[in-house]
């Protein structure tokens, strides 16, 4: 059972992401209203499906006249990066009851993966309950922002590009905090080059998943080639 102080410290940790989610969630809700979502639907969709990239794609693809099946397949490909996050988090789920694992796992996003993975890796008493509080706090801010966006429509205008860069900054901070071994540098370089290649091939949101997979595979191959497996 978490104390009130524990919950407050988890929410404080989630705060930068919550603020960014509010600023990006409102325009996302505005777009969802444009394709037929009621505010309640926008809230529930955001609270359950809970994917910024996926939800923006839903509105964009529908407005572009994309058939429903194509939309679902395209968005599912972008979703595949969640497999990587889930795999990376699995070592920290040892001895945790499965319902708790599912409750935590169902709400992992790019941002909450970053926060929680860093804290799990620090091995400073971080646990699934605290990680779930971070996830729920972020999810509620996202879903509420979508509800507001769907309710008020385009009355509110936010500088989305500036707010989005707040999220990029969070990712940069999480990346900088990684352990920079020679192997990690190689993984990062191959990943960045792969994302660039995917972008040039206009692969859009799939670039993240494809770039990361290329980086991980190249890292393993290069470690084997350079004889660094035992280090």
């Amino acid at each position, binding site marked *: 059972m978490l104390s009130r102080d524990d919950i407050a410290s988890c929410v404080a940790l989630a705060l930068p992401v919550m603020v960014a989610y509010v600023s990006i969630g409102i325009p996302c809700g505005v777009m969802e209203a444009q394709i037929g979502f009621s505010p309640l639907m926008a809230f529930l969709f955001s609270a359950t499906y809970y994917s910024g990239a996926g939800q923006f794609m839903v509105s964009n693809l529908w407005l572009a006249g994309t058939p429903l099946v194509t939309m679902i397949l395209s968005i599912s490909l972008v979703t595949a990066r969640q497999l990587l996050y889930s795999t990376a988090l699995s070592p920290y789920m040892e001895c945790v009851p499965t319902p708790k694992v599912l409750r935590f796992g169902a709400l992992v996003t790019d941002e909450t993966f970053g926060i929680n993975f860093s804290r799990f890796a620090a091995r400073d008493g971080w646990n699934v309950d605290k990680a779930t509080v971070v996830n729920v706090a972020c999810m509620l801010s996202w879903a509420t922002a979508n509800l507001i966006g769907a309710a008020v429509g385009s009355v509110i205008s936010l500088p989305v590009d500036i707010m989005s860069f*707040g999220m990029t900054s969070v990712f*940069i901070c999480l990346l900088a905090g990684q352990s920079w071994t020679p192997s990690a540098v190689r993984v990062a370089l191959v990943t960045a080059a792969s994302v660039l290649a995917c972008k040039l091939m206009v692969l859009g949101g799939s670039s993240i998943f494809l770039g990361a997979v290329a980086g991980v595979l190249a890292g393993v191959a290069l470690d084997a080639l350079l004889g660094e497996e035992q280090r």
Partner: protein
Amino acid sequence: MMSTAQIMLMWAALLAVMLACRCIPLVMLQGRVLPPRVERTVGSIPVAAFTALVANDLIQPDTWGQGPRGVLVPLVSAGIVLLVARKTGSLIWCAVVGMGVYALASLL
């Protein structure tokens, strides 16, 4: 506009895929002792994932046609955020400085 039936169908399909991706590896690999090679591979996922997320945000080919400004604003802002990250390690400071620098650089 999407009909309610279309929204429900899309919602169910996307949610099923999302929950499968988010939960199946967590539950399947939970508590398993992984072979060293697999463990090293899994260990490299965070660096790859964060690099991919940052690169995806910074590399925007559609802005390249707008001259050096479209490329430089995010890159310079990212460089300053990196310095703040190395100095403070604080997510909040990085987000605040990042948005501030990006806003200022966009105005110049």
